[in-house]
């Protein structure tokens, strides 16, 4: 019989069932679909009690909480339930998060329609969670892997440096992609479906320009030079990589490989690094100072750059010490269409022309009539470069126009005539010089297979006049440097053949970028390929041949409705797309000043605010940066688990149907129905609930000549140690009496720290330990102020397990009580921490070790009253094997005393530990309530009634109007749980009576709020007796005892006195 129980949902009823079952010794799995337990549905309890209750559940050794988990499938085979659970990622490690809240503070994203951040914490387990539906479409679309929504979110918060760092971490050339990108991100942007995409490129440029303006301040900013300072720490792999081509693909790969610890040499045939960015894109679109600065940053990380070097012996590289080669030479050969006179010297090639322009060669085209053939970006660059060189006439002639609308406008403003819909037939010569290009008109057809179709219109021949033709109809790689023996296969027109790892047909030789794809793509594509190649090369060099493709989170697709909602949720989202402004035409004549201007700050902020926050987590990684314990796991994935359960309780707020599965229980809506469901499970599982009384383990403290106490001081990742000088305290502490070992711990609530403490206990032969952290007691008790981390700390140290550490551990809270409240007075905070630790030392010295006797004998339950719930409760209890008796007569008095309930009748008295009162009528209820009392005359009825779900008094009451069946069964479940709970108590802190001083005056009997003490007769006399299993150790009886015979369970007088003296010393 499988004894585990599955509870689906954490409604208050479900949690009650979980507690009843767990205390009865049954293993329970609670499945909650949200990241926090018990936050949905109604709860009877005020927040602080709910918190206490949830912590009780989280810490209970018999309960396994499954948050963020949904039930995928439930079947029943041979009477056993089989459940498939899907646990969704929290993105935060439950065993590490300290709930410090730094991540929440730093997170730039407010989840649309709420007032909370994308990383938040609002319940138990008290660890943060990231709300991430997936990857936002912009980020998903970016080939370079830029966390696009992330930098937008950071910009919206004016956190430009972080935005720049985020872009720069994925893209070494933010300035370039802020200007000349084809922005797949904007095409993917959800906002484009509503009005216009967020102007992501302009935003990227905004921060790139911002960072460049501040570049001279950066050397002093330690965070910015992070990459270069970590140089020394990076372990060297001892491997060397040669990269041919210092373009975007090659330089990106170079940077990645340097980060992986490899030595990198980059060769380039040109006199300057940057590839097409530097010799293909003219400066009116891309100024070079910023690009050169970005390239310099890569080189300064240790990349060896060899310019003006044409490499044509790849096998030679491999045999001369390079362990891998990356070919990233780009596509620098412009092509012509083989028409008549295309070879005439007045035919120029676009890329050759642009290279001269980019390298600053003096060219004067004044008076020339230039015809640029082609309709793409290169043609546009050539035409616009040409018009700046003197005062030529420039015509751009093309079949179809592929340049952007804005660029066409710019070109036309600059005086370029754009002639579309032409097919070039021949270059016309007048004598020896070119006089024009003969064209035919073309009719534009449909797009088939991604290519626009054209048809020539015969008879439309005409000549476009010109004396210089620049060809910009396409470009391809130059493969002339490859080994002649075809060891590296080239696929025409695709480029160099490569497998999925981007390795060519030659072992150890990889390829990336345009040379692999056969023609010019965009910088961002090349960067993406550079990353990919670098990853593969790194794997190759480390002997990991298989590229492990992780199935990361998928793309978020917002519905139209959701997008509109988000538009309505915030004011700042409603603006129109910001356009970048341009240099006036008169100011850009005959010069290469940059035409597009950067956004102003206000416009940038406004534009960033237009983001629809698809993620909603933007993956800005700010949380990762600030999380000291390293608890953030952005790439966490879902996991699947299978559970066999003997019983299932459904306890979700929304009812679901399990097809064909029968025999599960439903927890219902309130605590009683929850307990009733727990009863059904106890019955179904046929558990033997009669508890075995465990021996109370004693902390056997051997009397040693002197204490060997260890002191551990938690830094809490700086939360404590930034204020309290834990370093000095640990150095000083070894001089304090009894302390033989003192040290700091970074996070004492981590498993590692617990392991370290356990090891030190062994190695140093410690007999007592003080842990100064945020945890504040070693008790198996949860107060209103307890936290998940404190319980985790205690749990890691075995406080809740039967295999607990055999030595006493005292906890002191030096975070909330020192560091956090005396932040401005670190010396004072340290002093108070010291005093707290020394008082803990005095507490440890006076820790009680005496043996406690225990008399709890009877588990018999009595039921009084004629209510129908009584009968059901009785039969239910008997079903569980708990002895139960119904009393027909109404007692004259019911008194709670000595931990028992005493029923006084006309001629007799009955004693029980558990009483169920089930009046049948209102009249009977009044009668019973009137006779229920405590020794001091208080009405026990009111006390029982005011305590929800408590058997503190050993009395349960069901008024006459309850659902008899539910109440009867719920009573049985709670009694079973209570009996087991009391009998399995292992650590007892109870008041103790010194018989030699007890005068049996009965004061303690009267004052106890729970009726625990009683006067008992023994052979040697009459004494007060306090049952250690039942005593709650409040110490009130000890305070009032006139003869001082009672020592309280906590804080005995001597200990308090020690503590007072320590503080006041």
């Amino acid at each position: 019989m499988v004894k585990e129980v599955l509870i689906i949902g954490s409604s208050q009823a479900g949690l009650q069932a979980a507690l009843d079952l767990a205390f009865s010794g049954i293993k329970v799995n609670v499945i909650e679909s949200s990241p926090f337990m018990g936050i949905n549905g109604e709860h009877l309890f005020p927040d602080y009690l709910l918190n206490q209750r949830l912590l009780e559940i989280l810490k209970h050794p018999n309960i396994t909480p499954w948050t963020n988990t949904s039930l995928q499938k439930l079947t029943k085979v041979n009477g056993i339930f089989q459940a498939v659970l899907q646990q969704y990622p929290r993105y935060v490690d439950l065993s590490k998060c300290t709930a410090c809240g730094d991540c929440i503070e730093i997170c730039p994203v407010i989840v649309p329609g709420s007032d909370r951040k994308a990383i938040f914490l609002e319940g138990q387990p008290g660890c943060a969670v990231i709300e991430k539906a997936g990857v936002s479409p912009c980020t998903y679309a970016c080939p370079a892997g830029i966390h696009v929504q992330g930098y937008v979110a950071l910009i919206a918060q004016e956190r430009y440096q972080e935005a720049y760092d985020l872009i720069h971490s994925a893209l070494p050339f933010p300035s370039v992609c802020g200007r000349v990108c084809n922005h797949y991100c904007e095409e993917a942007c959800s906002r484009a479906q509503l009005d216009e995409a967020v102007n992501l490129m302009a935003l990227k440029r905004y921060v790139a320009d911002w960072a460049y303006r501040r570049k001279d301040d950066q050397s002093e900013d330690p965070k910015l030079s992070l990459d270069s300072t970590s140089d020394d720490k990076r372990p060297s792999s001892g491997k060397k990589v040669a990269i041919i081509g210092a373009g975007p693909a090659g330089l990106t790969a170079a940077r990645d490989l340097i980060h992986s610890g490899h030595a990198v040499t980059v060769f380039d045939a040109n006199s300057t690094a940057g590839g097409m960015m530097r010799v293909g894109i003219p400066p009116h679109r891309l100024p070079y100072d910023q690009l050169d600065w970005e390239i310099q940053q890569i080189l300064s990380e240790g990349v060896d750059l060899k310019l003006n070097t044409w490499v044509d012996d790849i096998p030679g590289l491999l045999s001369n010490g390079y362990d891998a080669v990356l070919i990233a030479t780009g596509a620098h050969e412009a092509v012509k269409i083989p028409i008549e006179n295309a070879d005439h010297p007045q035919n120029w090639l676009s890329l050759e022309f642009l290279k001269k322009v980019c390298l600053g060669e003096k060219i004067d085209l004044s008076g020339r009539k230039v015809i640029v053939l082609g309709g793409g970006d290169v043609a546009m660059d050539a035409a616009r470069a040409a018009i700046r060189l003197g005062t030529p006439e420039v015509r751009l002639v093309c079949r179809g126009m592929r340049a952007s609308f804005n660029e066409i406008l710019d070109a036309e403003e600059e005086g370029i005539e754009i002639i579309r819909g032409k097919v070039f037939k021949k270059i016309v010569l007048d004598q020896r010089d070119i006089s024009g290009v003969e064209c035919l008109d073309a009719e534009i057809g449909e797009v088939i297979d991604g290519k626009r179709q054209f048809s020539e219109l015969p008879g439309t021949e005409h000549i476009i006049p010109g004396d210089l033709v620049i060809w910009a109809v396409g470009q391809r790689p130059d493969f002339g440097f490859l080994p002649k023996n075809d060891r590296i296969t080239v696929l025409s027109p695709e480029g160099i053949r490569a497998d999925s790892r981007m390795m060519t047909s030659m072992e150890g030789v990889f390829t990336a970028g345009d040379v692999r794809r056969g023609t010019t793509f965009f910088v961002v594509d090349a960067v993406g390929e550079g990353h990919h190649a670098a990853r593969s090369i790194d794997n190759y060099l480390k002997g990991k041949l298989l590229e492990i493709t992780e199935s990361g989170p998928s793309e978020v697709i917002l519905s139209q409705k959701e997008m509109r909602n988000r538009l309505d949720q915030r004011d700042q989202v409603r603006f129109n797309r910001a356009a970048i402004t341009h240099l006036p035409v008169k100011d850009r004549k005959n010069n290469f000043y940059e035409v597009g201007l950067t956004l102003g700050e206000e416009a940038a902020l406004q534009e960033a605010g237009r983001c629809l926050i698809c993620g909603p987590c933007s993956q800005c990684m700010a949380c990762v940066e600030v999380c000291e314990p390293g608890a953030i796991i952005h790439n966490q994935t879902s996991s699947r688990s299978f559970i066999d359960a003997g019983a299932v309780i459904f306890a979700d707020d929304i009812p679901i149907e399990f097809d064909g599965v029968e025999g599960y229980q439903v927890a219902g809506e309130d605590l009683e129905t929850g307990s009733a469901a727990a009863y059904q499970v106890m019955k179904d599982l046929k558990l033997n609930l009669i508890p075995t009384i465990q021996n109370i383990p004693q902390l056997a403290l051997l009397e040693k000549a002197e204490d060997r106490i260890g002191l551990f001081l938690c830094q809490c990742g700086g939360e404590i140690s930034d204020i309290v000088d834990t370093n000095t305290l640990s150095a000083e502490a070894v001089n304090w009496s009894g302390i033989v070992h003192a040290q700091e711990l970074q996070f004492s609530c981590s498993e590692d720290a617990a392991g370290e403490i356990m090891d030190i206990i062994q190695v140093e032969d410690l007999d007592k330990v003080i842990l100064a952290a945020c945890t504040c007691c070693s008790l198996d008790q949860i107060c209103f102020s307890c936290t998940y981390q404190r319980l985790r700390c205690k749990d890691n140290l075995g406080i809740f397990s039967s295999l607990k550490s055999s030595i006493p551990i005292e906890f002191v809270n030096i975070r909330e009580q020192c560091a956090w409240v005396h932040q401005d007075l670190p010396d004072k905070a340290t002093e108070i921490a010291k005093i707290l630790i020394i008082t803990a030392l005095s507490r440890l010295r006076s820790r009680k070790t005496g043996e406690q006797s225990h008399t709890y004998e009877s588990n018999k339950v009595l039921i009084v009253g004629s209510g129908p719930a009584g009968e059901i409760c009785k039969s239910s209890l008997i079903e569980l094997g708990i002895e139960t008796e119904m009393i027909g007569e109404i007692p004259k008095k019911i008194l709670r005393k000595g931990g028992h309930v005493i029923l006084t009748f006309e001629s007799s008295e009955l004693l029980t530990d558990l009483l169920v009162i089930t009046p049948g009528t209102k009249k009977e209820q009044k009668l019973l309530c009137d006779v229920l009392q405590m020794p001091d005359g208080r009405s026990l009825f009111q006390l029982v009634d005011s305590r929800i779900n408590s058997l503190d008094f050993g009395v349960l009451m069901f008024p006459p109007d309850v659902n008899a069946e539910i109440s009867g069964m719920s009573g049985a479940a709670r009694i079973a749980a209570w009996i087991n709970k009391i009998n399995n108590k292992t650590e007892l802190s109870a008041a103790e009576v010194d018989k030699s001083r007890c005068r049996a005056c009965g004061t303690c009997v009267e004052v106890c709020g729970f009726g625990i003490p009683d006067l008992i007769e023994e052979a040697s006399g009459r004494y007060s007796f306090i049952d250690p299993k039942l005593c709650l150790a409040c110490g009130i009886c000890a305070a009032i005892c006139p003869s001082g015979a009672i020592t309280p369970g906590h804080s005995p007088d001597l200990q308090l006195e020690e503590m007072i003296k320590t503080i006041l010393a």
Partner: protein
Amino acid sequence: MKTEEKISKIILFTCNWNAYSGLEAAGAEKIPYSPTVYPIRIACLGRITPGIILRAFENGANGVLLLGCSQGECQYETGNKQIAEIVPETRNLLNLLGYNDNQFQLDFVDTRDGKSFREIIQIFTNGIDEILGNQ
């Protein structure tokens, strides 16, 4: 002429429930309070005897503040009733010994109410400062 400020030491007894929760809330919310206050946590204020309070003064405390739960909210049912009875008799003893009423107070805090906790501490420490001539 300004005299040198005397450093006071105040013993604060909090019960483990509402009052400790208030103290912890002040910490968790980083609400500073006077560092002259040294908290000692006990299960219930009902555990305090006049003897313990006298011991604190005898050892040099400038004040003793007792913080517990409000009437009717005692976790142990009878603790706050008990302490309410002990306070007047202790105060009489302290008066005989020459201590001011402001040096010994009983108050309560609500669960997780760090702000009220700070206010109570503030008023109490101000009272002590007045007595010590720090103001």
